[in-house]
């Protein structure tokens, strides 16, 4: 019974996958989600997307490349936040409380939204296999930028994509 279920679902899934383009240049659409930030306020991606593009980055306190990337993201956030740009840092530490994470974030002068994802619900939803993983989504939740890992210079590519995403918002 289990084997039959697996087989049927796999065939139907492959049928759906096969009818879509698997090429990298088709714009992917990310699922919507919500969570609570470190101040216990509800954060909904759809509401943030109504104002402008949203950058989502998965990180952990022990991930040095994540922290270097977040420094660069903080600079971009300060530059474009007034125009409606939002950033959500989704923390993937397993055992951290809000109090500990607030201390960690404040001592690094990070001002963008942070959501805790200890149970990896969002990590599983977006298939996070390595850190950092960064997504830039814009109108209609289209994906403008995705990168696993951080290398020097990524922030320059990211800024170009932010500008491109903003230009799509001004189009009807």
């Amino acid at each position, binding site marked *: 019974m289990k084997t039959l279920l697996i087989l049927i679902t796999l065939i139907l899934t492959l049928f759906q996958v096969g009818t879509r383009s698997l090429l990298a240049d088709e714009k992917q659409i990310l699922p919507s989600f919500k969570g609570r930030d470190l101040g*216990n306020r509800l954060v909904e991606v759809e509401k943030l997307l109504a104002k402008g593009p949203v950058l989502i980055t998965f990180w952990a306190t022990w991930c*040095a490349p994540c922290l270097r990337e977040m420094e660069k993201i903080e600079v971009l956030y300060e530059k474009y936040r007034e125009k409606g740009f939002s950033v959500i840092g989704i923390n993937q530490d397993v055992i951290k409380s809000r109090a500990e994470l607030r*201390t960690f974030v404040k001592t*690094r002068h990070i001002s963008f939204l942070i959501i805790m994802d200890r149970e990896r619900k969002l990590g599983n*939803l977006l298939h996070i296999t390595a850190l950092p993983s960064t997504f830039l989504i814009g109108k209609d939740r289209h994906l403008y930028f995705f990168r696993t890992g951080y*290398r020097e210079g990524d922030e320059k590519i990211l800024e170009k994509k932010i500008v491109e995403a903003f230009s799509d918002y001004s189009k009807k």
Partner: protein
Amino acid sequence: MATEFFHRCSQIIFFVLGSSVAAHPLSIQGVNTSQYEIGKQSIGREKEHREILENRLDVNILHSDFHSIMRFEVLQPSAYSYIFDEGLKKWSMGFEAENIAVTVGDFQSIFGRGLILNLVEFPDLQLQNTLEGLKLGLSANRGSISLISGRDTRSKERPSVDFIRGVWGTTYPSQWVTVGGGYIRAENAKREFQLYGMQIDLTYRFLELGMDIGRKSVRDKIEKKGWAGYLFGSFLHGKWSVQAEYKNYKFPDDEFSSYYQPPSVLAESNIQLVAREETLLNPGDDVGANLVLRYSPSLDSFFALGADLSSSHGDKFWWPHYRDNDLSFFYRSNYSVNAYYRFKGDFSFNGSFSILREKLEFGSPVNLWACAIIPSYRIDSIQSVEFRGEVKAISFGNNSNYDWLTSLTYNSTLPNVSANFSIEKSRYVVHEKAEIKVAGELRWGLGSFHDFTIGYGSFGGGRRCALGTCRLSPPFRGFKGQLTSRFGG
């Protein structure tokens, strides 16, 4: 019986959902990872030959408020404790609306800081303690409640099945106060235990406070009880901060300990730069305290000074490097200085120095000092180089050893290539001969959604950060190649 019922129901619902895929537009997204490895993997002190060809496909099917997650694995040969079934390795389906979330299938859950319940999954490390059953979450503006019921997914390999049920509620009276409490009960054919706990987080101006407390009872032929508590506090003012933690852990031992975990904090005064081990408030410790003073003059820099004191009884420790016997009482103290500074321009520097001393009830004390320096230099807008050097000196009885590690990482963003080379001298147990380990990795991106990595050499396990990415991986020596592709729309 309840979990069996939900298991059957979910199979039927799963089949119906799968059948409707062709009829209704769904969003299907996922990641496929193909991996080949040939070499040796470290399992404890043993090294096993390893040659595997593995394909893991993670698929999400999303439709409105419904979602389904599946993981298919094909493994040749199928000889690993975690992957005991090929085919559908993990599955769950759920519904999430404004105030309710239901998950049927495999799920993870954490109550509090993990002191009461800590169900997690690390697929790359082949470690998991997830449950298969039902998880129900209800939320309102000022609070939420989570109910779980399930059986251990590793039961196929164990003589008896563990059933766990629990409830955890959290309320947010204001944005600066979180109060939670709950209960879990676990039982199998031989034994049962119950855990009650609560958690409070408070923020007042410059002050942060956190507390977890739990009470556990284990019933076998006799009943044993114990309690555990954890406190965290921090004070921030301008560029200065002070953090302190205290833990007192007296839960009685039992075989259910994999479902919960006492808080284990990675205080920055040591972890990131020096040793790979978690040295502070180790999960094996019974009592511990930690203090860190930090000064952050700018976004790019900080200096930290830390001290830790802890003690433990019994066989609960994680450092096989230092001793052979498994039963001892020891008292551990650790002092460290940590600095990170980025100079204007292209040069940045990380440095750390740590001293650790363990005093055993029987035998000689263990002394360790460790020092790490990590300068990095940005060559131009697309290339950078990072050098990492660590030295550790360990003395235990008549044994004194030095270990060193160096690595050189070259990164280039055009044409989306990264390379890493490392050379390290280290040992797994203090009386073993040190080994020189050499490893190299090359990674390049094929378009935005495909990633190809090849590596050869001896790689350390655990949390590994290389090529600009951090992953959890087991220690490995040999050749490996991996192709990861994301798809969907």
